[in-house]
């Protein structure tokens, strides 16, 4: 049976929908100079923006048909974990490779949105959207992940830190696409992510703290400490990282003086935004507490 659409009353405004089969084709359909033309991954963020009428596309370029090519999860020849730009968040959640090589992602997934959203949301969309409350950018910054980007002139690579430049802002040109993310294999690296929602687990967090500790011979060699959600973009805290470097590991914790320096660094070196999730002062206090919990969680991981 074929049915017409006479009864459809729609919330969305009409647009052109293209479904390229190859990456070059997709790139050729994008436009650097027209913000009404956007690529669409899982569409979960775009659909919300379109329904709220904060985004009215002229053309959407769906990347769905590229999923077979760009949706994989694999190790490269140097042992780096490579997540395809079209890999869904639920494929990350259930991947044995991710669990072995970046278990911090596996552990974070059940707390990221919900099952239905994770079934369709993609790695590329989770990075390119650059909503500061999102979890994956903060985690991937702590893992020093490299983002692979394809554009009309070829491909380039940026660290997540350099990709996300501000509140909903990235270094991507309008005609560039995220094709994947690579997480290098670092022996002895332990990582943790703690997300702090003030009401229910599905709410946007007031704070996300991600950290990675490269441990060897009973001490921490280097550390990355990243604050998300409470800031404009995932923000590293170099003074906290310096305080952790060289610290002796005592069971699953560190000397009290070291923890004090880390707490002070995250409290004094980061500008915390006040918004619906809480005041800046409240989030600063959350960060002081949760950064230490994240250290314990990482050392236990």
């Amino acid at each position: 049976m074929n049915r017409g659409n006479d009864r459809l009353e729609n919330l969305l405004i009409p647009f052109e929908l293209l479904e390229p089969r190859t990456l070059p084709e997709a790139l050729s359909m994008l436009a650097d100079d027209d913000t009404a033309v956007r690529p669409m991954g899982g569409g979960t963020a775009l659909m919300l923006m379109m329904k709220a009428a904060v985004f009215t596309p002229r053309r959407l370029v769906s990347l769905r048909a590229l999923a077979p090519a760009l949706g994989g999860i694999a190790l490269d020849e140097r042992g780096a974990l490579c997540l395809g730009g079209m890999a869904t968040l639920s494929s990350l959640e259930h991947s044995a490779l991710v669990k072995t090589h970046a278990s911090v992602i596996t552990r974070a997934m059940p707390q990221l949105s919900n099952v239905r959203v994770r079934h369709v949301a993609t790695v590329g969309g989770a990075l390119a959207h650059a909503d500061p409350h999102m979890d994956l950018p903060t985690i991937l910054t702590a893992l020093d992940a490299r983002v692979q980007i394809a554009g009309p002139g070829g491909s380039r690579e940026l660290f997540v830190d350099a990709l996300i430049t501000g509140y909903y802002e990235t270094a991507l040109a309008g005609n560039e696409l995220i094709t994947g993310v690579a997480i290098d294999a670092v022996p002895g690296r332990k990582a943790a992510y703690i997300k702090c929602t003030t009401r229910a687990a599905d709410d946007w967090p007031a704070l996300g703290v991600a950290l990675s500790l490269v441990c060897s011979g009973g001490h921490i060699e280097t550390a990355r400490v990243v604050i998300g959600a409470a800031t404009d973009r995932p923000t590293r805290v170099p003074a906290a990282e310096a305080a952790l470097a060289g610290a002796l590991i005592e069971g699953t914790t560190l000397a009290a003086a070291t923890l004090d320096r880390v707490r002070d660094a995250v409290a004094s070196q980061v500008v915390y935004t006040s918004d619906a999730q809480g005041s800046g002062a409240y989030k600063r206090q959350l960060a002081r507490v949760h950064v230490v919990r994240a250290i314990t969680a990482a050392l236990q991981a």
Partner: protein
Amino acid sequence: MSVATRTINFTLNGAPVSATIAPHHTLLEVVRDTFGLNGARESCGQGLCGCCTLMVNGQSVSGCLSLAAFADGATVTTVENLAVDGKLSPLQTAFIECGAFQCGFCTSGFLLMATELLASNPKPTEGEIRNHLSGNLCRCATYPEVMRAVQLAAERMA
């Protein structure tokens, strides 16, 4: 502006169907308005509440966030497909016995999500049930009864 329409062909609750849609139509609208399957309904419209849950290629999605165009070639099932020949599924029966709804607005979503969970994890822990259903909201707050119903169905299906 004249809107370009297209024809999509997909399997809906086991039957091959086709529909004429525009790119901006959601799958939820097509399932409800074109095919008259009103079990899934739009409530939050934002992916949060699960009232619009549909199964696409065996995975739960929020119909309110899905474009109908992407259903072309897909297998779509709705809550109307849970009962076979008028016989309710064990989970549906357990929902009734446990009183796992009051107004029933959220029920189709809870049923599809819990059916999905039990298919992949026949003996879920309480935490696993909560986790899988965490994206479903019930304004009548029947959560304890829903938990019991899912556990009861799991026991009976074991």
